[in-house]
C-alpha cells in the first residue's frame, strides 16, 4: 500500500477536524464506521466497558447538528484545533481491502479562553475504496485516558 496516500488521507482528516468541518469529516467514514475513545488503557471493547465516547454514524449526525445548535450552551464558544501526526505504522491485517494504521497525535485545542494539549495513539482501520479510503474504525487512546477530563465538544 502506498504510504504517501495513507499519510495524505490522515492529514486530510486532521485538517477537517482542525477547522472544524464536521459535515465533510463524517463523510470520511463508512456507513458502519465508528469513533471510539476508551476510558482505560488497552480497553478490550466499547460495549461492556465505559468510554469517553463511542459513536456510530447516527450519533455523529446528532453531534454534527448539536454542534451548531443555538441553545447548546457549551457550543457558544468557538473551538479550533491543531493536529500533528507522527510515528505512522502499518499493522498486519487479516482482511483483504482493509488497512490498519497507528499514529501518534498531539492535538492542541483552543476552547473557552484556554489552550489545551491532548496526546494520543490513534488507530485507524481503513477500507480501501478505489483510490480513496473509508474509515471503518477510529480509536483514540489518550495517554491520560483514566484522568478526569474537561468538557470536550470536538472529536480529536
Amino acid at each position, binding site marked *: 500500500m502506498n504510504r504517501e496516500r495513507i499519510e495524505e488521507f490522515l492529514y486530510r482528516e486532521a485538517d477537517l477536524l482542525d477547522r472544524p468541518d464536521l459535515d465533510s469529516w463524517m463523510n470520511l467514514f463508512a456507513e458502519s464506521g465508528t469513533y471510539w*475513545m476508551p476510558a482505560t488503557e488497552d480497553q478490550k471493547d466499547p*460495549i*461492556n*466497558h*465505559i*468510554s*469517553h*465516547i*463511542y459513536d456510530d454514524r447516527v450519533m455523529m449526525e*446528532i*453531534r454534527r447538528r*448539536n454542534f451548531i445548535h443555538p441553545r*447548546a*450552551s*457549551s457550543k*457558544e464558544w468557538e473551538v479550533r484545533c491543531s493536529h500533528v501526526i507522527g510515528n505512522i505504522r502499518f499493522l498486519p491485517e487479516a482482511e483483504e481491502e482493509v488497512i490498519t494504521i497507528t499514529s501518534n497525535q498531539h492535538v492542541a485545542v483552543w476552547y473557552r479562553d484556554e489552550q489545551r494539549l491532548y496526546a494520543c495513539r490513534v488507530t485507524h482501520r481503513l477500507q480501501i475504496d478505489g483510490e480513496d479510503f473509508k474509515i471503518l474504525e477510529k480509536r483514540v487512546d489518550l495517554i491520560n485516558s483514566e484522568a*478526569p*477530563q*474537561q*468538557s*470536550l*465538544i470536538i472529536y480529536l
Partner: protein
Amino acid sequence: MIRPISVDRFIVETWSFRLKGAPDSMLQRTLLYSRLINSAMGMVGPDDLEVYRRAQEGLASPSNEWVEFHRQYGKDEQRGDRTVGGGTSDLDMRTQYQAWQAYMEGTIFNEVKNA
C-alpha cells in the same frame, strides 16, 4: 457523583453497576447512558458543566449578595406526608437549606437528644 476539590473545582464521577444475574444488555445500556449523558464528551455533560460554570462566575460577582431560591415559592402542594413542587420549583433547594440551617442551629440535635 459530584466530588468537591476546592471552592471552584469539582470532579463528576460516574458509577455503573453490573447486577448479579442480570442480562449483559442492562450493563451495556447503563454504559451507553453514561457515555451520552455524563461523559466529558457526552451530549449533555458539556452543556450542564457550562451552566455550572456560569453560575459559579455569577456567584463570584459582587453585584448581588443573595442567591435566589424563590422559583415557584408558595405554590408547593401538600400531598399527605409529602410536599410536591413543580419541575422548575426551587422547593428541593429551599428544603435542603432549611435542613442545613436546622442542623447548624442545633434544633434537630436537640430534638433527638430530648426525644
